[in-house]
């Protein structure tokens, strides 16, 4: 199996405070990976570091054997909170922007996803509800044809009807050889999607293991296992 993402000895500090410490991680092609950790554990920071939005202070991140930021940006699609767009922007204008700046943005794929999620292109950002906004973020992120997708809490604050649609669109539009890293606080809900989980605890990667092995070894659901890890109730071999 080829390694799509490889992180070695990554440390990130901000204002003299260590946010992430000595992260080592290696992830293969064609997987869906859950990134779990409590509020403030550093999940978002890690994703932003991988995508090259935050600058790496110490350590190396390799995506598809490339370490240059430009090459990494070509291969990574990070779900964007769309904060950079004015509240007046029309959905169609945002789609145009994506099409212009990302050569791998597939209009057809976007149209398909948008149709499935009932997105209205003529609306302005300010008039979208939280649910619709979440759908738009997903549609834009998935419409790029890249090897690595980073979805940062794509379902936070979204009603359960929209959540189900978002989950099914992730399954449907993920290409076989691409990898998705997804973070969410409702682990049970996304558990069925996941191949592996990465747990962040105490500023570093506590462990990475497959969902199967959790079930086999501990006879636990992903969420229970994750909680146990945080409560320290698990004998770590």
């Amino acid at each position, binding site marked *: 199996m080829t390694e799509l993402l490889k992180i070695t000895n990554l440390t990130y500090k901000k204002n003299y405070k260590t946010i992430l410490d000595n992260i080592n991680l290696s992830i293969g092609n064609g997987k869906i990976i859950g990134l779990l950790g409590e509020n403030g554990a550093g999940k978002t920071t890690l994703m932003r570091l991988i995508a090259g939005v935050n600058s790496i202070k110490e350590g190396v991140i390799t995506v598809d054997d490339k370490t240059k930021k430009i090459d990494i940006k070509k291969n990574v699609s990070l779900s964007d909170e769309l904060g950079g767009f*004015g*509240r*007046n922007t029309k959905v169609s204008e945002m789609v145009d922007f994506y099409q212009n700046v990302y050569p791998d943005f597939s209009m057809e794929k976007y149209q398909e996803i948008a149709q499935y999620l009932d997105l209205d292109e003529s609306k*302005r950002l*300010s*008039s979208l509800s939280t649910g619709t906004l979440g759908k738009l973020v997903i549609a834009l992120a998935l419409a790029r044809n890249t090897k690595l997708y980073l979805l940062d809490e794509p379902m936070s604050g979204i009603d359960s009807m929209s959540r189900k649609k978002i989950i099914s669109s992730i399954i449907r539009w993920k290409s076989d050889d691409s990898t998705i890293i997804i973070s969410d606080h409702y682990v049970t809900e996304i558990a069925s999607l996941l191949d592996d989980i990465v747990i962040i605890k105490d500023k570093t990667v506590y462990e990475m293991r497959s969902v199967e092995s959790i079930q086999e070894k501990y006879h636990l659901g992903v969420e229970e296992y994750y909680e146990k890890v945080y409560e320290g109730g698990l004998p770590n071999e």
Partner: protein
Amino acid sequence: MSNINRINKDLFRQRGKLVSIILGFHILAIVLMMLYKKVFKVTDPTSLTGGVLIAIITGIVLLVISVIYVFDSSKYRLIPISSNGLYFSNILSAFFAIIYLLVGEAIIYFGANAIFPNPYDQMMIRDFNVNQYWFQIKLVIAFILGIMLILVGSVVIRLLVSLIGDLLPIKKQTFATVILTLIVIWAVMVPFNVITANTLILLGVQEVTTSFSSIVRMLNMSLFILVAWNVVLTFLNLYLLNRWSEATR
């Protein structure tokens, strides 16, 4: 009544702090300037009037922001107190903050002049000391009333803009809000000017001469009109606040 006292305590403390910070910065600025002049042996006299003006304007702008914020904020709108109570508490604390600011600035101004005398400001002080105490007091009152009118007027404009913005079928857009604010300010200013000018004429100020008595009469008229406008706009504010306005933050 006890609830009004509760919110008064918070607002008075907050605004007292705001003004104290401005005064502190002003003192610091004067000290630094004097040190600079001592160290580099600059002998040109420097007037302190500009600094006082800047401090007062900064204070007024910050107070306007803070007064408007109270009406926008759920934090204050949720306090169990009537809208009228909130309004008066807000305006009253701003009023005392202004008094504090003016008194503080006066002390700084005269104090700095006593320690670092300079010819410009000594001339200003001499000019003002014309032994017309009654006139001077009125002048200060007019000044304070003018600042109050700025505060009350800003609230009127804020409330009107959000009311009209809600009634129009436009989405809250920054650009539209800016345009709307300009239109409302203009719409408020037109009747304001017309009514004020006409009242002045009605009250008998046709010719403005430079004689002292006509200046005194002019000042009396202005005082009257300032009070009248403050009262009228306060009633408008209370109506808007009770019936229409919503917390936006």
